[in-house]
């Protein structure tokens, strides 16, 4: 994608995740009762990276396996009937479960908020956390539901028809956040498309 413009590169992503880890610790006054749940696919890897930084920063934080898990939201999505059928991701909770703990949901891009809505529903089937917070690498705006993030890596003003793509070493072989115009066209120097591209809403939770 020659037309995609990078907005974050690997070193910045690393610094942003370190900051988020510290914010999470500060907000929670330590690592007690914390559980980080990543939303597959990329949220899972981000959750793991934040947890690694958290363990490094806080001597009292438990081993990584007690701290991090993944939460697949596919079966709770409200747009299943609008798209071809999706494969399922993995849900795995740390041994203590989520009851009475503070769950931090981690995802790559916050867009419409629908993925987070699905995650909250999925979470309520797994237990009753004491509190749920949300950490995202990129908040690109255009919310369709009353949802906000507690910890944001970067606020990224975008047009609805632009697409934001997060690439991670574990999945894509490199770390970057890219933004591109509709249909991968260069910056919208010409007239923008009359309607948002049908695929634009899928950029969130792209897998």
């Amino acid at each position, binding site marked *: 994608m020659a037309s995609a413009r990078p907005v974050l590169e690997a070193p910045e992503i690393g610094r942003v995740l370190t900051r988020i880890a510290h914010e999470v610790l500060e907000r929670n006054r330590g690592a007690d009762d914390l559980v980080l749940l990543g939303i597959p696919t990329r949220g899972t890897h981000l959750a793991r990276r934040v947890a690694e930084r958290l363990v490094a920063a806080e001597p009292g934080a438990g081993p990584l396996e007690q701290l991090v898990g993944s939460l697949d939201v596919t079966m*709770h999505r409200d747009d299943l009937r*609008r798209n071809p*059928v999706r494969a399922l991701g993995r849900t795995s909770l740390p041994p203590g479960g989520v009851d009475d703990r503070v769950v931090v949901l981690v995802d790559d891009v916050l867009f419409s908020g629908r993925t987070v809505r699905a995650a909250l529903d999925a979470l309520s*089937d797994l237990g009753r956390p004491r509190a749920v917070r949300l950490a995202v690498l990129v908040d690109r705006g255009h919310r369709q539901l009353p949802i906000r993030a507690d910890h944001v890596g970067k606020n990224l003003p975008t047009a609805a028809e632009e697409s934001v793509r997060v690439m991670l070493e574990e999945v894509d072989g490199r770390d970057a956040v890219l933004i591109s115009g509709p249909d991968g066209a260069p910056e919208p120097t010409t007239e923008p498309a009359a309607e948002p591209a049908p695929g634009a809403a899928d950029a969130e939770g792209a897998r």
Partner: protein
Amino acid sequence: MRHLLSAADLSREGALELLDVAEEMAATQAREIKKLPTLRGRTVVNLFFEDSTRTRISFEAAAKRLSADVITFSAKGSSVSKGESLKDTALTLQAMGADAVVLRHSASGAAHRLAHAGWSGVGVLNAGDGTHEHPTQALLDAFTLRRRLAERAGGDPARVLEGARVAVVGDVLHSRVARSNVLLLETLGADVVLVAPPTLLPVGVGTWPCRTSWDLDAVLPDVDAVMVLRVQRERMGGGGFFPSAQEYTRRFGLDGRRLRLLPDHALVMHPGPMNRGLEISAEAADSPRSTIVEQVANGVAVRMAALYLLLAGEDAA
């Protein structure tokens, strides 16, 4: 996936995707809250023209765990006993807003007819048609086998069944389970051998992608699993397929002595219901290597996966 009619319709990728989805479904069934909202607003009709307990209950549980509405329709006590045709029944179901039909019928090809005759646009899941196919049973057998072999050997779940050796023993002639299993296991790369008296092998078995044998004792030491089929005496009419039940048991029954011929890791499978004492002894059926109860539990997860793949996506119609 539009319909699930035959194990032969599944590509290797399609079958593995279904097994992977079933693995996630099984994980949800280990939780306190087993119900998922995924198929809310969809209607699944269980259309059973033939007696069945476990398949019907399994499909019903699977659909309900995914929040679909389930209408169960058995031929007894319905208009079918008044002579209504499959076509008219299908039109009735469509008028009621069914999204998928799970069909069990005594006629081979009934599910194919319902899916392709142009009577209605609903998705069809074959839950056993005559002596032809029973694809979800084959899928749950493959799921059980894959899980157990992966626990033992580890490795890439997509390749666990490659080269696995499976013996299918007994009444192959009347068994829809055998045909579906042979086709699916071949797709997944397993090596299947059918063991049966010549009278209980179908005509044309030479064209199936498997080997055949008449000597169970010679086969058992080299398999990873033995699937025992039910002797379907209700389909045998006047008999004549084997001289006596005792002789069948002596030649092809899985008893304690034959159990000890199996390698240590080998599994004993049976699609149920069992004729204890005929094709399988109590010792074999209740031994620790028997997966018979596990197969039933896995059946729900596999059928959830099939319903999910059939119904969760955008409307194909």
